[in-house]
């Protein structure tokens, strides 16, 4: 028989749900959900499952079945700890039923059998899946199979502190025109260093604070590779564009040489960084759309739009302006109980309802996952969600779903760090990166 595994699974679901076994008595199910990279503003990633459980219990009651779902929630503020904990728990057979993580985990985790496709359980034509943005569905798929449901979307803008920009001669009209100048390629990364330098020369920011990038590893840095014409994946194969990678490394070396970025910037504590950029200590920096929530809720930046302008990440040489979206996805782990998996699948579907998802989107300043979300008042009346969606999301790339991408990413970051801190010349760093990737990935990466 074809697709043996699939058949057996589907049969088991059918038996569990339709033969009536176990349904005469009340059904008690515990569903566990873990979320990574989840801070105080992101609680609806797991709380949405609670809300969904309530709705599903009612749906069951209407159909004459008694279902009681206990939701066990666990959040991790960082990514590294979360991925370590989850992969090790899964190896030990203790994976949670639902995982909220970055889409890039789909490839390695589907290979290891840690997760199962959501399309094995869900009707993809059902609401709200049929209303989800097509590109988000694509990012949640691997090899044409839908492995997860998008949980949120975002993008990563370049921020400018308006008062400092005005101090170096920008008028309000100039600042309003800036995003489109960035988009058209008129304002480039070279201008970023120039303006940052001007701010420092003017004395409005301290040396090293003109351009104040993210202080640790993150998907953000692939944007700069793209800005300089780099491509991450082509036709299912990873790509290292050496020239683009070198221009990208060189940009940060130039920023350090110009004195607008600190040589020892990497490793600055996150809290310090957020506090500084939200209080005008830095001139230009880059972050994510969800940082808005932190600036406004935790860092006390009350007049965001009066103080901050935002745009795409500008183009560098031979590249174009861009941003990166790194949607989180709800994934289902391979479950000992098909019944749990079926219920978990229903829960993540319900949790993706526009109204429920809007709670997360607005509280955490992420972008919506369904088209109808724009018709939820909470969402549409939020200026940040509206403007960020329009200005950024159409130009957003995503990282590839590829099992080997993690190795590439680690090596790319190591190279950037060594060039940035002056340990290696950019050319040397790229050379070493190539050697390392060739020896670790072999044919799985195209070098050009």
């Amino acid at each position, binding site marked *: *028989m*074809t*697709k*043996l*595994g*699939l058949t057996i699974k*589907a*049969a088991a*679901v*059918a038996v569990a749900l*339709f033969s009536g076994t176990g349904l005469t008595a009340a059904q008690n199910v515990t569903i566990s959900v873990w979320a990574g990279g989840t801070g105080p503003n992101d609680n609806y990633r797991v709380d949405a499952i609670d809300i969904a459980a309530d709705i599903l219990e009612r749906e069951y009651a209407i159909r004459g079945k008694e279902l009681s779902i206990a939701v066990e929630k666990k959040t991790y503020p960082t990514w*590294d700890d979360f*991925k*370590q904990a*989850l992969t090790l728990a899964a*190896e030990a057979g203790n994976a949670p039923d639902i995982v909220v993580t*970055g889409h*890039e985990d789909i*490839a*390695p*985790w*589907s*290979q*290891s*059998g*840690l997760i199962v*496709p959501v*399309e094995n*359980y869900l*009707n*993809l*034509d059902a609401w709200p899946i049929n209303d989800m943005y097509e590109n988000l569905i694509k990012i949640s798929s*691997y*090899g*044409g*199979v839908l492995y997860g449901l998008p949980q949120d979307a975002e993008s990563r803008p370049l921020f400018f502190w308006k008062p400092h920009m005005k101090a170096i001669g920008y008028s309000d009209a100039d600042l309003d025109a800036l995003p489109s100048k960035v988009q058209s390629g008129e304002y480039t990364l070279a201008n970023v260093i120039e303006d940052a330098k001007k701010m420092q020369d003017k004395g409005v920011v301290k*040396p090293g604070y003109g351009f104040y990038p993210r202080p640790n590893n993150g998907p953000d840095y692939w944007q700069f590779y793209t800005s300089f014409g780099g491509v991450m994946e082509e036709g*299912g*194969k990873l790509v290292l564009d050496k020239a683009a990678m070198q221009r990208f490394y060189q940009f940060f070396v130039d920023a350090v040489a110009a004195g607008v970025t*600190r040589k*020892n910037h990497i*490793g600055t*504590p996150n809290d*310090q960084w957020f506090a500084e950029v939200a209080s005008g200590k830095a001139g230009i920096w880059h972050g994510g759309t969800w940082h808005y929530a932190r600036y406004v809720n935790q860092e006390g930046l009350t007049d965001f739009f009066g103080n901050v302008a935002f745009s795409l990440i500008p183009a560098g040489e031979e590249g174009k302006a861009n941003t990166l979206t790194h949607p989180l996805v709800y994934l289902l782990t391979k479950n000992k109980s098909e019944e749990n998996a079926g219920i978990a699948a229903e829960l993540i579907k319900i949790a993706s309802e526009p109204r429920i998802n809007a709670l997360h989107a607005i509280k955490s300043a992420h972008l919506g996952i369904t088209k109808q979300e724009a018709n939820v008042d909470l969402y549409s009346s939020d200026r940040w969600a509206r403007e960020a969606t329009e200005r950024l999301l159409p130009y957003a790339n995503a990282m590839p779903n590829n*099992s*080997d*991408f*993690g190795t590439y990413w*680690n090596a790319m970051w*190591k190279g950037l760090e*060594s*060039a940035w*801190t002056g*340990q*290696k010349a950019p050319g040397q760093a790229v050379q*070493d990166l190539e*050697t390392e990737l060739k*020896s*670790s990935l072999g044919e*799985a990466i195209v070098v050009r």
Partner: protein
Amino acid sequence: MNSSRNLGLVLMAPAIVLVVLFFLVPVALTAVFSFTTMSTSTGITGGAYQLAPNAIQRLRDQFGMVELAQKLGEPSFVIDERGLATLEAKGVAPGIVAELRSNHLNETFTVRRDVERMIRSLRERPSTPEVKLISAEFSRSLANARFADEAALFAAVKAIDAQLTEDEKAALAAASYSGWTWTTENFRRMVSTPDTARTLFNTLAYVSLTLVLFNTGFAMILALAVHYMPERPAGFFRILWLLPRITPPVIYVLMWKWLAWDTGFLSAVLDDFGVRPRNWMLDSAANAWVVVVFINGLVGASMGMLIFSSAIKAIPQSLFYASEVDGAYRWQQIRHIILPQLRWPILFVTCYQTLSLLTSFEYILLSTNGGPGGTTEVWALAIYHTALNNYAGNLQYGYGAAMALVLVVIGIVLSLVYLRLFNYGALVARPLIEH
């Protein structure tokens, strides 16, 4: 005699169990893992056969089987008699089967969503689990299918009418296997990676600087200093120097950060003297090294101090009195009485601390995390970064274990060298006086 020997074995048993459990087994497992391609994506407990996109790609690129890859890789669903017969056998509602047969026979679909949409449009409108069950029976490709073993994979291939040669079978199995395989590639990769030499050199520098300057050198100075102090202040200083060790590492390193960050204490004080604030922990490689050695050294020194001072206390007081009568200076007492008596403790501290420094990375992880730019990345930290830390969720257990194995070998070799150097045999020889 015999019973006392048995009693000895019984008393030793717990130690033997611990050594086996916490040393021999981990070492053996490390050695085994190091010859595998294990990672999160391969899993630890074994794999399956899955025609994921990367498997199809391998079949095409590595084995040159373009046609087979094409045939197996594209999803396709065919409404045929075979599928209908199976549905009947499974007891699916006759109305559904009849309608499929009369209206949809021989239709083909390339997208699962489309075939399921068709099934859902049937008059009896099957529920979602039923739709999944029905569509699975008409699937005539293996794209993304997952099989527990080779036999199941080949059976499935046969079922979609693909005749495979033995070569093709072998290639298909090799390309689609998702689990780990045996390999010596990890060691080749280690040798050819440009950063290996630097990480090794960093480790050498870190261990020897911390060991010589602090764990034995400074520890000895402390032990001697408190030895020549009156009892009460001596006790006070001993406790003072224990503080770094008993402070939880996270808090201890946090205090160092408050001291060294560009917004920290050092910068604030030096600012008044015209020194530009900077991050004294990460500004340059030299800064980072000083901090790393100090952070670890101040923790390590206390242990040496305790061992050395108790060993000094064990030296008979009469030797000191006699030397003072002879007019010996303090330095001569140290040189001719104390140090010769401390050979054993020095061997122990050196040996123990070398091994513990080789494997300890927690303070570096918390402070510089190997920065700036990998200048303080030591071997143990590199293992952690490889095997237990990956932003994209793919931890490299196999390569990490290979790196760890190198550390095990270095540790064992160093222990043997130390035993030789300090003439262990003579140290444990029976005292002559009992003969």
